[in-house]
């Protein structure tokens, strides 16, 4: 292909959009409507997922060890771990794949936390009644999990360690969050597939109608000796441009709406921001933008190439 033919093809692609402005507008509007719904749903699902994941991050398991005290049972004697062994167990926990973070809580910190959590303003007064730390030797670990569905496996392993006296965890929270996460994943995959399928069907039909009304033009080109490539190129470029515009429009709209909603919630319902973790704009659009643009351009490309092919056999 000569360079002037390439420029001619590109120019014709743009010119065709304006020549057939009503079909171009209809195609752009269809693509925009479909991808707007897709983008909106994607934003909602991703935020919902982010909120659940944030909640999951807060789910922790607390591991207590046997220690010497007045009510120490005979059967745990010999199972009381040394400081070195506690550190070693901490390292073993941290090395497990499902563990995202491990925090060591010493007996002093545990006693301090107890007093702060339970005595409030009487902290100083009540503290004077205790000459030494009643929780002396009661060290523990707070273990955070990357995936709550693996919590029960971790708990089973922790409970099997002879030095461990107790493992505090909430199976109900873990199961609820894990179930919610799974449900969101299945529902969102299902709806996104349906939305994409409907979008592809609607968009390719609109592009097809836009090209079919110009089948006469394609016939004329073929009769006077135009190659398939020469006929097809402006249509394909036109399809891709329509796809690009149709995808860019809802992205711009969703970007505006999303920013507005985030600001609105941030200002009016700031209390919610502690436990509702909305995805930052950049993170959401980092995925949504390339996906929407690829879908728009891809459908425009495929829709036009398939439709033009039908009219090329002259």
């Amino acid at each position: 292909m000569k360079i002037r033919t390439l420029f001619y093809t590109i120019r014709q692609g743009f010119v065709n959009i304006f020549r057939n402005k009503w079909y171009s507008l209809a195609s752009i509007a269809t693509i925009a409507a479909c991808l707007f719904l897709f983008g909106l749903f994607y934003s909602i699902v991703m935020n919902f997922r982010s909120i659940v994941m944030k909640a999951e991050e807060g789910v922790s398991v607390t591991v207590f060890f046997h220690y010497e005290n007045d009510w120490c049972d005979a059967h745990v004697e010999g199972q009381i771990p040394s400081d070195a062994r506690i550190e070693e167990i901490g390292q073993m926990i941290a090395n497990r794949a499902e563990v995202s973070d491990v925090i060591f809580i010493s007996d002093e910190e545990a006693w301090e936390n107890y007093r702060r959590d339970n005595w409030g303003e009487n902290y100083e007064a009540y503290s004077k009644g205790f000459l030494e730390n009643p929780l002396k030797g009661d060290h523990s670990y707070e273990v955070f999990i990357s995936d709550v569905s693996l919590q029960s496996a971790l708990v089973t392993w922790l409970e099997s360690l002879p030095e461990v006296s107790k493992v505090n965890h909430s199976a109900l929270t873990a199961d609820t969050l894990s179930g919610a996460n799974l449900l969101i994943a299945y529902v969102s995959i299902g709806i996104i597939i349906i939305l994409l399928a409907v979008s592809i069907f609607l968009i390719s039909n609109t592009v097809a109608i836009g090209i079919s009304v110009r089948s006469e033009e394609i016939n004329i080109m073929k009769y006077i000796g135009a190659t398939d490539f020469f006929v097809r190129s402006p249509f394909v470029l036109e399809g891709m441009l329509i796809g690009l515009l149709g995808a860019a429009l809802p992205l711009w709209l969703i970007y505006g709406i999303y920013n507005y909603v985030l600001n609105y919630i941030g200002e009016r319902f700031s209390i919610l921001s502690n436990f509702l973790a909305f995805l930052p704009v950049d993170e959401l659009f980092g995925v949504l933008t390339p996906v929407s643009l690829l879908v728009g351009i891809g459908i425009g490309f495929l829709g036009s190439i398939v439709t033009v092919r039908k009219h090329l056999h002259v």
Partner: protein
Amino acid sequence: MGKKELSWRKREQFIEDNGIIFLDHVSKVYSKGAPAINDITLGIAKGEFVFIVGDSGSGKSTLIRLLLRELTATEGSVYVMGSDLAKLKHRQVPKFRRNLGVVFQDFRLLNDRNVYENVAFAQRIIEIPTSEIRRNVPTILATVGLAGKYKAKTRQLSGGEQQRVALARALVNKPSILLADEPTGNLDPKNSWEIMTLLEEINQSGTTVVVVTHNREIVNAMHKRVVTMKRGVIISDEEGGEYIDED
């Protein structure tokens, strides 16, 4: 003919012997029904002017579509400019068609473009430089008498003028053969004669002209070779002949 395309010299010899258009026992049967063309043998020499006449359903349009390689023969061979059209691959068809000029009854112009763009389009597809297109298009528009209307949209033109644009588009690439399918079918007598006069001038400049028509008056007045078809077969082929009314 062998399996490979003939060399240029052999092709010239073939055209000399058989004609620039040669149909060798050609039949065309559509998927259902009787053959549209039934065992036709026809040769048209380089530089000839031939009328193909006949009633509706006689096979004239099928003949034109075979020559354009829009259809392929069910039986027999169609040779145009020494090429066996059945052997042309799909990708070779555009190049082949560039040697043919085609004019239709319904003009088939690109109605959203002006006269200049319609004619220039035929040159663009064969990648003629723009500077040459700017020289060639006004020249051919002057030949068909439309020099002053190059900016007009085709919808603004009369039927006769639209057919002239179609003729200009067909001729601008200097084809060896001009195929005209009912070129006067949508025109009044005055415009019809003007178009036929143009076709005759084009023929005199060396182009082979094949005209499919119903127009008895024109055929009888022009005293050219007349091939008459009926129900898919040639029933007469006469130099300086007349439109035979079989009914």
